[in-house]
């Protein structure tokens, strides 16, 4: 501190920060942090694979006529949903809560990054990991499980994109009821459970009884899962896809509004 080097002209233009530089910087820092947090790394990297193996072994014995689709296809569809839930939703809730409690979010808000950039930057690594795992799942399903390649990759990609946006938003919303990183396991459970059973992750939706299936159709992840399913199987009708798209858009708008209304950038004192 003896020789402060602040003598350069204060007007020096330098490189301006842009959305790209900010997202890169924030995403890179977040990825570094993810690599250093054993719990989050486990949830993000290993847990999805574990769940897929569980899913596969539990579906193996189930008759194809009960499922409506082959056990392998059910594994791949459920596995995709599992990856998205565990990586994008659950790990993002705990990392975002950690940043809030460490006052990182508040500090970032004093800088040039906008609020959406701060959230998007923090969600980038989880999103990238989820996409890589989905890619592994697709290739692995094709080469190891003998599944067909996705029939409609375009619908699969749309489903993934919608799911990531929606889940990142729901994750941000969930942090408002998550006081500490430790409690994230509990606060993320409701969405995890209703999605697992109601949105066609563990149990294909066709296997649900009539009324339950109708209600399940309204759940937040049901729309994007419909796209994922259609992407893998290529069996969708325009009508069900339209319903699914409407469901997703409605949930996304609702979530966006709720995040703007309730999201907290600093710890409750």
């Amino acid at each position, binding site marked *: 501190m003896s020789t402060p080097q602040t003598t350069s002209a204060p007007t020096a*233009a330098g490189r301006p920060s842009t959305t790209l530089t900010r997202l890169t910087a924030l995403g890179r820092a977040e990825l570094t942090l993810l690599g250093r947090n054993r719990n989050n790394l486990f949830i993000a990297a290993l847990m999805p694979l574990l769940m897929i193996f569980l899913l596969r072994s539990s579906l193996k014995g189930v008759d194809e006529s009960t499922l409506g689709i082959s056990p392998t296809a059910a594994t791949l569809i459920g596995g995709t949903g599992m990856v998205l839930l565990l990586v994008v939703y659950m790990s993002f809730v705990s990392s975002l809560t950690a940043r809030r409690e460490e006052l990182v979010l508040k500090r970032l808000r004093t*800088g040039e990054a906008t609020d959406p950039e701060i959230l998007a930057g923090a969600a980038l690594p989880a999103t990238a990991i989820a996409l890589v795992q989905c890619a592994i799942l697709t290739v692995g399903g094709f080469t190891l499980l003998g599944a067909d390649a996705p029939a409609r990759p375009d619908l699969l990609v749309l489903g993934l994109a919608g799911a990531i946006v929606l889940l990142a938003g729901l994750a941000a919303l969930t942090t408002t009821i998550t006081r500490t990183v430790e409690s994230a396991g509990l606060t993320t459970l409701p969405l995890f459970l209703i999605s697992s059973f109601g949105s066609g992750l563990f149990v294909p939706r066709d296997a649900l009884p009539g009324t339950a299936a109708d209600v399940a159709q309204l759940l937040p992840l049901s729309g994007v899962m419909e796209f994922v399913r259609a992407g893998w199987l290529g069996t969708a009708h325009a009508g069900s896809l339209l319903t699914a798209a409407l469901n997703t858009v409605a949930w996304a708008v609702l979530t966006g509004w709720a995040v703007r209304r309730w999201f907290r950038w600093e710890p409750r004192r």
Partner: protein
Amino acid sequence: MTAEALNPAIEATDLRRSYDGGFEAVRGISLSVPRGEIFALLGTNGAGKTSTVELLEGLAAPTAGTARVLGHDPYRERSAVRPRIGVMLQEGGFPSDLTVAETVRMWAGCTSGARPAGEALASVGLTGREKVRIKQLSGGERRRLDLALALLGRPEVLFLDEPTTGLDAEGRRDTWELVRELRAQGTTVLLTTHYLEEAESLADRLAIMHKGRIVLSGTPAEVTAAQPARIRFALPAGVPAARLPLGLKAAEEGGRIEIRTHALQDDLTALLGWAREQDVRLDGLDARSASLEEAFLDIASRTEDAPAGHKETVTR
């Protein structure tokens, strides 16, 4: 000079801020800081300093009133203001698992015209600490890193919320030196502090806040001059305070006498002359000019325990 350069760097008009519970932390603050000035906001804990600064930084919208920084609304026109200001919050806010270098790199990506990391760290004496994790830094080192990041974009206006809290004496002096150099380069600085010495030695002007309002403001000399000097001593047993010379306003508390005066030299002469004449020994005699501390304590006590309690004013 352009029209913008003539505007004050920071301006607040009747700023108010209420929290959800209804508590009004800021109750009508008006202030104006010209370019290149160091302005200090003083106050007891809970006086509303941080709540005020957060409004000026654009972290929250005021409940009423207006804030202007470099001619813009810091909350609504965030993107116009942020590239030109630097902010150091009262409490850090860096991920504990990142290293110093990684933190600077993250911040640089979010800062227009960021200085090189090495230069920024050198300016706060953190050279050689690049590979250390934030959680392993001492409290003082974290404060200095925070300052380095606030300065990363060569801001025109700098907000420092208690910049030297947690620093040792040397670190504090170094920070003061740095702030003075920034002023020499034309940077406007608004700082909050509860170290009176800091405000007295750094600030061109200061304001003392109490319960959400500014109760006293001016240059340190003006604020001090408004306060009385103080003489303190103990009278020996058997000499009642009532025997003190005429004209001295004294307060007695448990045998200790306190005289407040705007004519220190005259009153001290009178007191000492009287003591010699009466052969009275004044134990623990202590005479001091008015200080910012006096002003500060006066304000803190003024509204808190308005009835002077056990103090008894003796006037003769």
